């Protein structure tokens, strides 16, 4: 039981530190600022801001759907990949490592195009599901690395203790290692959640009617480009900040035991 807590940083993190109990911290400033800004624009300039706001709700719903389905998919895929990466079975290890290597070497946008049109042409997968699969495949690889690092950060003694009691490898992993690794894994995974939420805007390229595409449709018809994208940016900011708050609350809940 070491006293240091391992921290893993994989991508652009936006999880703010909530230890900062000042009334005026970065999170509150951004969150309240965004809300006030939106309220001001919508109430005092209803044309076009109110029109934009009325145009995009179904897009917002699609963004949420894609985000949460992709997070679920990426978590499952990430866990499987992470376990595969530490597997002693050479074949499984090779498959998992190759997957990570390939996915990390291809830009998300290219993957989205590729998977979307490949799935459409050969498997007739509907558009929303294609987007979710593409996002899951991409983020599954990143999360796989987080899971691997998290699992490897747990002291070998924990495995030995569990195995010496008679637990098999799977029981050891799921009862002893993962519950502990989760603490190390959660901050970077939370960052991945937020990065994923932001990256769902890329699916608008695939004609998935998310909040960004709805905004673009509105702007292309009405020519209110600046106004539309101002509102879209504020909406993304609010959602991202809310999600980062949720992740921080989960982190606090998990720190009920000290190492």
């Amino acid at each position: 039981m070491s006293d240091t807590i391992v921290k893993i940083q994989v991508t652009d993190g936006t999880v703010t530190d909530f230890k900062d109990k000042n009334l005026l911290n970065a999170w509150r400033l951004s969150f309240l600022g965004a809300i006030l800004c939106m309220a001001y624009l919508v109430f005092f300039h209803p044309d076009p801001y109110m029109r934009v706001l009325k145009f995009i709700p179904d897009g917002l719903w699609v963004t949420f759907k894609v985000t949460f389905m992709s997070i679920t998919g990426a978590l499952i895929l990430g866990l499987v990949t992470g376990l595969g990466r530490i597997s002693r079975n050479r074949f499984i290890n090779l498959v998992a490592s190759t997957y990570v290597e390939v996915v990390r070497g291809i830009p998300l946008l290219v993957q989205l195009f590729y998977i979307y049109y490949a799935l459409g042409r050969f498997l007739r997968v509907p558009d929303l599901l294609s987007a979710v699969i593409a996002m899951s495949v991409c983020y599954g690889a990143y999360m796989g690395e987080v899971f691997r690092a998290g699992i490897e950060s747990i002291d070998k003694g924990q495995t030995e203790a569990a195995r010496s009691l008679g637990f098999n490898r799977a029981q050891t992993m799921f009862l002893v290692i993962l519950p502990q690794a989760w603490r190390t894994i959660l901050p970077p995974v939370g960052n991945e959640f937020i990065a994923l939420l932001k990256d769902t805007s890329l699916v608008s390229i695939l004609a998935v009617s998310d909040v960004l595409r709805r905004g673009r449709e509105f702007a292309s018809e009405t020519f209110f480009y600046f106004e539309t994208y101002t509102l879209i940016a504020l909406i993304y900011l609010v959602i991202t900040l809310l999600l980062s708050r949720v992740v921080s609350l989960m982190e606090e809940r998990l720190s009920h035991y000290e190492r």
Partner: protein
Amino acid sequence: MSAEPIIRTPIIRMEGVSKFFGDLKALDNVSLEVFPGQRVVIIGPSGSGKSTLLRAINRLETVNQGTVVVDGFDIRSKHTDINAVRMELGMVFQSFNLFPHKTVLQNLTMAPTRLKKVPKAEAEERAMALLAKVDIQEKAQVYPAKLSGGQRQRVAIARALAMNPKIMLFDEPTSALDPEMIGEVLDVMVNLAREGMTMVVVTHEMGFAREVADLMVFMDEGKIIETGTPDEFFNHAKHPRLQKFLDQIL
């Protein structure tokens, strides 16, 4: 202080066991028999292979050559359910290795409820009895991080006992402890020995060895150099390397 073992069949039998780490021979053709009820204390300088020998008994360390039979099971065989064998072998580590995400009580009940399907209430009752035995019942609901080293090691011993093992293996159980805490852990081990538990202990605590050991084993460079009673070891050591080792640590 205790009767000679009457039963002739050894519960642990190691024969011609060798283990290599690259060119290094961690175990070099080692043979050892442990009989039920026997207390074996293994001593030797660091890197002599004593921990490896102990860990070879429950296959935490796989060996390259030789036979290891525990409770009638050839543990090197692929057909042996190693997890079933391990349930009969309690192990205590130098670094305690308690599960930090579980309370003390949960540390004790986890294995019996999951592996032996003991009902939760029954497992908890037994866990409380074991915690009383190691004199730490008041900490049942506490997380391990809140315990001192000595307390942690006593909980670790109780955790191993919760599975009702036939044999207890101790891998330098007091080496990571502050001096003032060593006594409380040794007391628990002495009591366990008095109850007739079969024990294999790797330790530097010569007082403990003198008090409970039926058989002393001295290892150096992966080999068993000398075996004997505590009296033979401490008063009539034969091998010069053992004499030198004892001179250094006593």
